[in-house]
């Protein structure tokens, strides 16, 4: 079993999903900027 707590993993999941949202926003801005 993993030695990490469920809270540790929840933070990881949140970070991965947050990074996805940040990227989509950044790519949308990139698309608009160079249009």
């Amino acid at each position: 079993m993993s030695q990490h707590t469920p809270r540790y993993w929840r933070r990881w999941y949140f970070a991965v999903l947050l990074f996805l949202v940040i990227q989509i926003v950044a790519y949308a801005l990139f698309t608009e900027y160079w249009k």
Partner: protein
Amino acid sequence: MSVADWIVMATTLVGIIAYGVYRGRGKQSADSYLRAGRQLPWPVVLIGIMATQASAITFLSAPGQAFTDGMRFVQYYFGLPIAMVVICVTFIPIFRRQNVYTAYEYLENRFDRKTRLVASFLFLLSRGLSTGISIYAPSIILSSIFDWNIYLTNVLVGGLLIIYMYGSGAKAIAYTQTLQFSIILGSMAIAGIMIVTKLPGHLDLGDALYIAGQSGKLNVITTDFNLKDKYNLFSGIIGGFFLALSYFGTDQSQVGRYITGKDEGESRLGLLMNGLVKIPMQFAILLIGALLFALYSLVPSPMFFNQRVVTDVREQAPLEMASMDRRWQTANDSLTAASTALVDARQQGADAAPFVQRHANARAQSDALRKEFKVLAAAQGSSETNDTNYILLYYVRSALPAGMVGLLFAVVFLASWGSISAAFHSLASSSLVDLDLLIRKKPLTDSKKVALARIHSLLWGLLCIGVAMFASRLGSLIEAVNILGSLFYGTILGIFLVAFYLKRAGGTAVFYAAIITETIIVAVWYFDIVSFLWLNVIGAVSVVAIAAVWPRTIDSDGVKAG
């Protein structure tokens, strides 16, 4: 290629094979051969996952795709991080707890043997065929560029890796993938940087991006919703999520990578890191294609990037080609002039509108000539009228210095080997564990299992090379093989989702739900109602929905614990 390039390429390839053999030395048990003894740290798991997914065609066609269609292909990966989280929450703990060698093994524990057999059979069929195609796809490119015999090239691309993977097993494959992938990423980064350095004197990265942007190549996000459109924000997030969930959660070529993690945490970290780095990596690879477009707007470019086809057409239709060559020269000159004028206007802060229009007209002119050439090539009997996969390699051969060309061609081999070695290994694991060992009445000793696993690996290697040999005669059927895999993906995911989330559903319910769904999927595909990414969504949702409403009285199997 120069002598230096051949030396760099041969040294890289021999080095990789030697490294693979070195990492695979020592005595193997069935557990170490099939699952690396479940001892790998997350960085190795991560790179195994990434190298398995990224074939040679990924590195060749993605820049070509950005060159022709723009960067919107990156949206295809937007569902991937969400899928990574779902797999970490649900799939990994279950696979880990049940101590499985293959994903399909779990289906027997949860449902019954027939569900396991159907799922593993579909995997073996579709992965076996598609691995053959992924040997053939880079082979045809190499054979076209170097004028090599296609059958010999198939053996080089699909056969040399057997030298190290036959005896080695999962651990050596994973560590070799790590070295391969490092070389690939390093080489691609250098190729990308060199595009910017090759821009005409007074231009910089910003100018190249400006040209690419004005040409519609930096369309990373597209929000026009259309069920038949392959790549937009919605199909990327929703369709991409189901595709990634199916591929990473239920395809043994991926499950076989992350079950090698030292513990549940290492497997999870490998997948989560993949969720973090995959999209930026694809963005960078696509950006290379967009920058190449800018470069070839500023310096002369060929009408068609597969030079062998150009040579053939020139021989067969010299008069038409002479006329086209003259018109291409004019079109190329006006495109470079319009591009230079456009960036000059940008640099001087002048009103860009008239220059944008002039640039658009010049682009339309060269696009029309490129189309005209494809029609001419098809009329001359050329089967290759798509040069997308040749764009990056054309640049590599014509612009990179000696040594780098050889390294980039070695990358084509390394990227192929990275994904093909994992495919051979997963096919062998599944055919051994899900079929062969089930049929045998007497249990085998551990050393016999290892010997048998090696034979399975070898046989799958030979079979896939055989498919690649046959592929040269398949022509347009190659696309059919790729479609075949995607027709089953959603249904198999649906079976696993029912297993995980519908505790009350039994084997018979899921079996019939899968059959009904597959009929629906084939019909939807046949009548061309939606683009292929949505088939995964329909397949998975349909299996879950039918299994959920299936009357329990019909399900004579009862329910096993999940």
